[in-house]
């Protein structure tokens, strides 16, 4: 369980990136954080594993304050995949890269190999195991960075914009990874600008604007017509299906099938 109480983060240059956030993320929940560029999403999640420390307020992991704990210790609880894979990948070989995290957490020999193989399977890079990461394209490097967090087997996985740069197949892959983590009872926090991915893969959506949480609920609640004004205020547009669904009286999270059915049946 992650608990954020009255969190404020001010960067040394005076930027107030997070400005009073209260948030409670239960074990096994999957939540998406959305909001315009610069609204403080990345800054918020970097507090979950202690990379950033609160200017004011508290962050608790499983009831324990992060304040006294080192990042290397928190890493066993919260795995965080960064926005930019190229600031993470260092190894000359894909498998070595994936093994880095779990090795740091103390996994050795057979257990380590298993963790690496499973993570590579999950992102579809099994065949690429012996290659140099920099021979992979950007989207595959992004998946590799994701795999190296998955391999750590942390109870909580935080993904900063996992679908950026992915084609349909890549997005589908990420969606399946989230579903698998959910099935295994692990907590997932994902930052995303892809509203379709958010609405379809996450039962809970948190909307940020200017360092604060302005909406928090199921996709159905958050993308409801009453909130469209608030969403526009943080440059979020509900996916097309939500907007059409609301107009057709199907609610803000219709399934594709229901939507098509209703559109076909519409007179003239």
């Amino acid at each position, binding site marked *: 369980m992650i608990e954020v109480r009255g969190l404020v983060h001010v960067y040394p240059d005076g930027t107030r990136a997070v400005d009073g956030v209260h948030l409670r993320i239960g074990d096994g929940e999957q939540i998406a954080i959305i909001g315009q560029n610069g609204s403080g999403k990345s800054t918020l999640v970097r507090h979950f*594993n202690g990379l950033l420390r609160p200017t004011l307020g508290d962050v608790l992991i499983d009831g324990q304050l992060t304040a006294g704990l080192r990042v290397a210790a928190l890493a066993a609880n919260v795995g*965080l995949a*960064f926005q930019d894979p*190229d600031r993470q990948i260092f*190894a000359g070989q894909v498998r070595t890269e994936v093994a880095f995290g779990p090795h*740091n957490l103390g996994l050795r020999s057979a257990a380590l190999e298993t963790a690496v193989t499973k993570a590579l399977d999950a992102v579809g890079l099994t065949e690429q195991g012996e290659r140099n990461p920099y021979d992979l394209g950007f989207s595959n490097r992004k998946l590799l960075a994701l795999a190296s*967090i998955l391999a750590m087997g942390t109870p909580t996985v935080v993904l900063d914009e996992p679908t950026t740069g992915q084609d349909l197949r890549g997005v589908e892959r990420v969606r399946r990874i989230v579903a698998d983590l959910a099935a295994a009872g692990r907590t997932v926090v994902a930052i995303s600008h892809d509203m379709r991915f958010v609405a379809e893969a996450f039962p809970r959506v948190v909307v940020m604007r200017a360092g604060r949480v302005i909406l928090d609920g199921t996709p159905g609640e958050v993308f409801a017509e009453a909130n469209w004004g608030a969403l526009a205020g943080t440059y979020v547009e509900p996916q097309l299906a939500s907007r059409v669904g609301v107009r057709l009286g199907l609610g803000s999270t219709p399934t594709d099938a229901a939507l098509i059915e209703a559109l076909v049946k519409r007179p003239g």
Partner: protein
Amino acid sequence: MIALSTAALAFVLRGWLAPILALIVVGATVARAGLGRAFLPFVLATLPLLISIVLIDVFLYPGATDTIMVIGPLRATGTGLTIAGQASLRIVAFALSVAVFALTTPTDDLLADLERRGMGRRATFIIGAAIQTIPRLAARAGEVADSQRARGLNTEGSVWRRVRGVVPLVGPMISGALSEVEERTLALEARAFSAPARRALLRPMPDDAAQRAGRWLLGLATIVLIVATISGHLALP
């Protein structure tokens, strides 16, 4: 320009006088430009180096026999102390001169000036890119280190542990810097960087007769002294 001259002077000349003069010039510049606060970190940064110089020279200067103090197996020598004092002054004068240069000369001014003086724009770009790269590299290093700590890299503890911890940081730093260079080159070409026309500078540079004279004088003195040192007219200790 003044700062660069003093840096060169401090480095070339030995003895007491030159570095002290250089320090005075540096001090005057800092005071005139009101740089006091920004300057402090640079002064502090030279301290570890200074301490090691003093320790090594005072106790281990080869061939010195004029012992002034004995601590266990170590003998402090008078010669060593003098050398250490001079070396420290030189280092401080050099480092602070470079710091003044960095603090007082906006990159844009330096580059525009170089180009106005007829330096090729490729050379100008390389110098500019090199200077601008430093803060970007620093920011990048922070992020790279963060992402490895997030994967459980322990950067605290024994020396060996910390040295090993550097390995996963080097790769992303270098590859990132290289790919950035490539991207910048492409972006530049797309904006007609190598087109043959001469460019108009958009910003006029303040420059009066006194400034010019001072600069020439210092530059001349620097060259004379460097030549003298190299050709052996001024003895190196």
